[in-house]
């Protein structure tokens, strides 16, 4: 056993660092660090840079434009990206639908969709949840009825992140209402421009527009947009969820957030002394840092085990629960240390191009909204309660 990075891994890290210092646009990094909203254009600009280097889709097989990186390289890459303030890749295309297409799609689907994801032509969103089907995803009702060369889709999806910007949506739809729940579901790719689709914004409690309702009324979808077999969509869904969960631990993002917390606690003063001199705050930061150290090792350990034996199983649920709790603890401390400046709700200062007077040089306006926004981490991607149910059942066999 050796938990140190090898010489090759260190060299790889240097390579990533050099790339990020040279190529990451400073205006984008600045926005990420201040918790400002990013535009679609910001994401696209960064995506192009990554694609050019061949690093936009590290998890894909090389033949489709991916890399040969193992879990350690991926981890190093994520961590460095977060530390430099690179935007997190929007996962729906590259990390969600793409692995499903690669595993279950036809050659034609691979040839058509994957390059368009890689070069940023298509933006994807995820159409799983419905008003009545959240944790109990398999109870979904959106219906797809075969009609010649098409499916006719009717129903509603909700909580669709970035649906307002997406070109395509991958949906779980019910194709056999008679079959037992999981058996009658199919995985469909739908062009958001198809007539009959309406997108309505949902504003979250922090005032942001990142989720939507998506309505389908007699939407015609070509049969060739089915991925895998009809009524076998649940297999795709489950495959995708395990992929999603591992990423949701968000170690790199937590490390960056923790570093930001420590910097702020050093910079911000009270009574003429840096806040970090306060013993209670130091204890709280120390505690979360040690937790993070442990979850990082757990992540690497579980991913390494998976490398030999396939995709990580229910263990990824443990990573999701603990990882999101840590991230939420960091945002909580970050909120506390700005004191009364958590109160001002300066939506305009969060805008992309705000260059007016700042209320306070150091009390970043994004801090309290981010604290509230990050409550979502324990709800989406399978709520933390559901993750614990999975661990209890699959690992502990309770």
């Amino acid at each position: 056993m050796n938990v140190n990075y090898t010489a090759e891994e260190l060299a790889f890290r240097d390579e990533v660092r050099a790339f990020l210092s040279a190529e990451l646009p400073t205006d984008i990094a600045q926005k990420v660090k201040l918790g400002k909203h990013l535009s679609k254009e910001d994401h696209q600009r960064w995506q192009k840079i990554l694609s050019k280097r061949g690093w936009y889709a590290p998890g894909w097989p090389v033949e489709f434009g991916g890399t040969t990186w193992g879990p350690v390289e991926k981890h190093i890459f994520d961590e460095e990206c977060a530390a430099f303030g690179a935007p997190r890749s929007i996962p729906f295309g590259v990390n969600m639908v793409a692995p499903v297409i690669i595993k279950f799609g036809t050659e034609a689907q691979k040839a058509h969709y994957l390059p368009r994801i890689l070069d940023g032509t298509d933006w994807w969103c995820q159409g799983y949840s419905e008003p009545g089907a959240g944790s109990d995803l398999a109870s979904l009702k959106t219906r797809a009825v075969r009609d010649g060369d098409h499916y006719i889709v009717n129903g509603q999806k909700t909580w669709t992140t970035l649906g307002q910007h997406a070109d395509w949506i991958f949906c779980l739809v019910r194709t056999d209402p008679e079959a037992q729940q999981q058996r009658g579901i199919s995985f469909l790719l739908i062009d958001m421009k198809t007539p009959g689709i309406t997108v309505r914004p949902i504003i979250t409690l922090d005032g942001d527009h990142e989720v939507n309702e998506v309505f389908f009324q007699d939407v015609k979808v070509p049969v060739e947009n089915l991925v895998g077999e009809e009524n076998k969509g649940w297999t795709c869904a489950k495959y995708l969820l395990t992929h999603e969960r591992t990423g949701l631990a968000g170690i790199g993002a937590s490390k960056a957030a923790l570093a930001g917390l420590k910097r702020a606690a050093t910079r911000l003063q009270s009574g003429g002394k840096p806040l970090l001199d306060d013993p209670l705050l130091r204890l709280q930061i120390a505690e979360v840092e040690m937790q993070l150290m442990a979850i990082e090792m757990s992540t690497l350990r579980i991913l390494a085990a998976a490398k030999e034996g396939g995709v990580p199983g229910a263990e990824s649920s443990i990573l999701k629960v603990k990882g999101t709790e840590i991230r939420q603890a960091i945002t909580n401390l970050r909120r506390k240390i700005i004191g009364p400046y958590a109160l001002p709700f300066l939506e305009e200062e969060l805008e992309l191009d705000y260059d007016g007077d700042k209320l306070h040089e150091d009390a970043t306006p994004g801090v309290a909204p981010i604290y509230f926004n990050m409550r979502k981490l324990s709800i989406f991607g399978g709520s933390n309660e559901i993750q614990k149910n999975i661990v209890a059942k699959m690992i502990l066999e309770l």
Partner: protein
Amino acid sequence: MDFKLSEEQQMLQDTAARQVRDAYPFEKREQYSKSELGFSQDFWNQLGELGLTAVPFSEELGGFGGGGVETMLIMTELGRGLTLEPYLQSVIHGGGLLAQLGSDAQKENVLAEVAAGSLQLAVALEEPTSLYNLADVSTTAKAANGGYLLNGRKAVVIGGHSAGKIIVSARTSGGQCDEAGISLFLVDPSAAGVKRRVFPTIDGRKACELLLDNVQVALDDLLGEEGEAFAALRYQQGRAIAAQAALAVGYMQELCNLTLDYLKTRKQFGVPIGKFQVLQHRMVDMQTELEQATSMAMLAACHADAEDNAERTRVLTAAKYIVTRGARFVAEQAIQLHGGIGMTWEYNGAHYAKALVMIGHEFGDEDTALKAYAKDLEVA
């Protein structure tokens, strides 16, 4: 010991409850919050007409001589409706400072109007780096022209945007964190040199930064003795904390009710989610925090107007700690148990949750309270 309310107290509670219920359906609150004033002038006027703004003041000041319990009853109802009016800032905190320190003339001219609800006060103590330490005052007041010249910046003054007068702490002598040398002034926000940068707060209210640039105030605008305001600041902050605890209890009651309803009605896996034991226990934990906060709000109410001594300080500090922590727990768990719905602007529960978390950003957070309590820990 007796936990029963008197007949008058019961009536007061009913009046406040009815008033809030009628004026504060959630859609109306959104409108008030988005308006320029940031709250309802009509509702504020009603509080004045019904005498609710006069409750805590003594009879010779035109009040009803109410104490901590009466304040608690009103605050809890204001909390249940998630009201936006600066009652706590104007009547309890500002009014309390005036009642304790004001000269006869100040009481007659200013306090009478506060009690009637025709004048709204704000209290500007916090500074950009003071982090809830009342003694950390860099704003200066220098004797000039028979009065004082004020210079400095006051942070996040709740209700400061609409206040007719703002009570400002400033240093007349001593070093940055000295308790001695702090004075209080009644500042007219329309005076030359006063600048207010107004902003909404994340819990839907309005506040401002108060920038003072050579603001001339008269000798008559000094509250109490020069340099001697600290004891009153501490005492009145204690009253404000007691009132805030009751406010938080009102928020928690409503948010616990909303969550309990949701557990009974939301179905997943073919059953109401309240059938899942892990959620039952979580709901029990929320209810337990509500009970603990209710107890501390009562204990605080019964000490708020008592003589200033170590026991009172201990109780109020403990109330701040228990209530702030409980408030956050209830807020976070309520969001969690609602799933995606709990994250949305259009769901009123999310706004209760935000208000509950912000309890820890006014008059101190749980850490300042924990440290203060630990410092004076009694060892038998």
